[in-house]
């Protein structure tokens, strides 16, 4: 298992997905400005400055606790999705196991793609304001997402086919 987690086939896509996740969250939080910047008739320098400025805004516009949650969620999303992909690749065509893999893939997608993105998705639906009525003003969604992602990560690691052999069970 450690070999898989250290391999470049795992690390590169996991980190890439984590970075993409952070970019997605950053720009969804300022969708109006992001869209105007990308589609507007502005210079490349302007677009670059606004897009990088919004990334800096992650430090100034959210609390340190939420920053930690965001980074955790991004990393766990990257790890989970990469594990799902590697597992699907390794077990493709393996009859009933496909159902199990499909189940954990779905779980990872539900855990990462939906609950973790709760705020931006709700914001796009026009419902983000409702989060202010939750005791933690929406931080709950991030905490739930991290827990879901940790759970899926744990189960995927636990059931990952680490060796391509059948082990003997010594009953002596």
């Amino acid at each position, binding site marked *: 298992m450690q070999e898989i987690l250290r391999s470049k086939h795992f690390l590169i896509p996991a980190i890439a997905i984590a970075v993409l996740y952070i970019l997605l969250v950053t720009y969804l*939080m*300022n969708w109006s400005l992001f869209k*105007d910047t990308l589609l507007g008739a502005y210079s490349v320098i302007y677009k670059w400055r606004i897009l990088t400025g919004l990334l800096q805004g992650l430090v100034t516009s959210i609390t340190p606790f939420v920053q930690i949650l965001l980074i955790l969620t991004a990393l766990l999303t990257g790890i989970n999705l990469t594990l799902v992909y590697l597992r699907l690749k390794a077990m493709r065509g393996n009859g009933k196991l496909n159902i199990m893999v499909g*189940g*954990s893939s779905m779980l990872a997608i539900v855990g990462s793609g939906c609950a973790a993105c709760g705020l931006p998705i709700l914001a796009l639906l026009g419902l983000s304001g*409702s989060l*202010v009525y939750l005791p933690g003003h929406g931080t709950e969604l991030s905490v739930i997402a991290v827990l879901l992602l940790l759970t899926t990560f744990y189960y995927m690691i636990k059931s990952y086919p680490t060796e391509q052999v059948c082990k003997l069970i010594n009953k002596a």
Partner: protein
Amino acid sequence: MDHNQIQNQIPPVNESESKGVVRNSYERMMWMLSGSIIVFALIIGGSIIFAANNIIAPRIGNTVASSAQLPIVESTPPPSGPIKVSLDNDPVMGNKDAPVTIIEFGDFECPFCKKSFEELLPQLKRDYIDTGKVKFVYRDFPLDFHENARKEAEAAECARDQGGDASYYKYHDQIYTQTESNGTGLVLTQLPVIAKSLGLNTPQFQQCLDSGKYADEVEKDYQDGMSAGITGTPGWFIGKSNTDNTITAPAVEGAQPYSVFKTMIEEQLK
């Protein structure tokens, strides 16, 4: 050890046992999947219910109207891209004929508004407002869970009532300086004390505050912010000043760094 000896050491696994292992794993996965979907559904469902009952029902004065009586205004996604926003009759800081306007939709009890007041506004004042290039307009967007924000917004309007825009911004500065920005970061009994310290007529100020003279004005700002797609504070619009007292600009949400503002202002000044 020959092949037969190895074979003998392997415990026999009957078909029902192997099916059971697969079934248990499958069931465990399905259980987790179902649980996740349920949690997700509860989050979305809960948000929709909260939204329907608390946020999306437009308010009249200080009361929340029933969503059954009035049309839902936030059931559609907030507008994206540039939007026309009015300066209304709200207080202006800086040159009234400045070519660029910044509108802030703010909440006196919002910690990120306080952060913007402390870190961003001084830089904007130094580089753009005091040099006549930009005018700054503060509009109220008191969030409902910030208990004292609405009254503080009304108090600033009462200060303006006596001393105009300059008086408004002196009061505005004092609120942000003194509040801890946690919803009730400034006790309401402090409001007339601030008025007195700024040399305002305290009884007149108190009467203005008690009568709720500016409650509708604050509410109008809030509704305008909602219509403009503001979902949290601080919310900003930076655009070229129009002759019809409006600007057309995309919303900028949150306590963004000075570099974002500088880039947008410079673009508008071209």
